[in-house]
């Protein structure tokens, strides 16, 4: 049977812990403690996603100064992850990126938190 390729349609950026944010590569070279903390954070995120995601997900390996990019195959998994942030005490950049299969472009929308959940603007 042919395996269907996994398409990661949804993406959010999860901010690093406060002390690790906006650190240049040069600074990180001198601060192995921060690098260690970032690696542990990334591992923890991966472990949590393994537990809560029903479909495929990916923790992006590329280094970003503000946070780590997460990719989801399923919209439901992505939504659940966004609304469960207070539970993990993490902070998501309030932007949702969605891959458009027709244009192959990544469209970005603002995430708006409401008392009943989140909406997209």
């Amino acid at each position, binding site marked *: 049977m042919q395996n269907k390729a996994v398409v990661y*349609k*949804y993406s959010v950026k999860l901010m690093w812990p406060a002390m690790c944010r906006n650190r240049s590569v040069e600074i990180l070279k001198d601060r192995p403690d921060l690098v260690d903390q970032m690696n542990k954070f990334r591992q923890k995120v991966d472990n949590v996603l393994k537990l809560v995601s029903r479909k495929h997900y990916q923790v992006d390996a590329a280094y970003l100064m503000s946070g780590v990019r997460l990719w989801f*195959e*399923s*919209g*439901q998994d*992505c*939504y659940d992850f966004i609304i469960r942030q207070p539970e993990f005490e993490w902070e998501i950049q309030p932007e*949702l990126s*969605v891959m*458009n*299969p*027709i*244009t192959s472009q990544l*469209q970005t*929308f603002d995430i708006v938190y409401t008392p009943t959940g989140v*909406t*997209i*603007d």
Partner: protein
Amino acid sequence: MAMKSAYITVIGNLPIRFDMEQAKVLGPVIASANSNKSIVFDYATANTETNLQDILNSASFRGTELLVPEALFKKYVFFDGVNCLPEFPGLKSYDIDPEKCSPQTLSLMLAVYLRQTVVFLLGYDISNPTELTRLKSIALANPQTKFMYICNPPRTHQLDDLENGFCDTFVKFQELIDRAE
């Protein structure tokens, strides 16, 4: 990855009695809202919430790429099959509002956007003058694309003034499918 086809079929607003599964032999098939539900379409367009909800609740649309205007997309962004319609070039010159026009016009614009060279129109309502005018406007703006209106006999002459607009019968369409198979 499937080879890109030169043909695309647009199923319009009118329900039709034709085995649309066969049209998939020629290339992708686009459904317009929920007028036809008989097969799993490659794409479907909608611009009202009622239609979109009906499509989402129809088993036959599982696996179909649903394309809706941006405002509606934002409400249903977390539904895996729902995607945002691209920005079609020249919409203002056609005087077409994607949120208010008919789903078949959206499907037609999507077919043109996907750059297929021949667009078959099945169950496409041209009895409405606005719909006919829009079809002609889109055909005039895309001279490299051929628009083949498929109907039961007698064939219509409504598209005769277009250089790239043609009309043929379901029998001829079936023959083309048989040759492709």
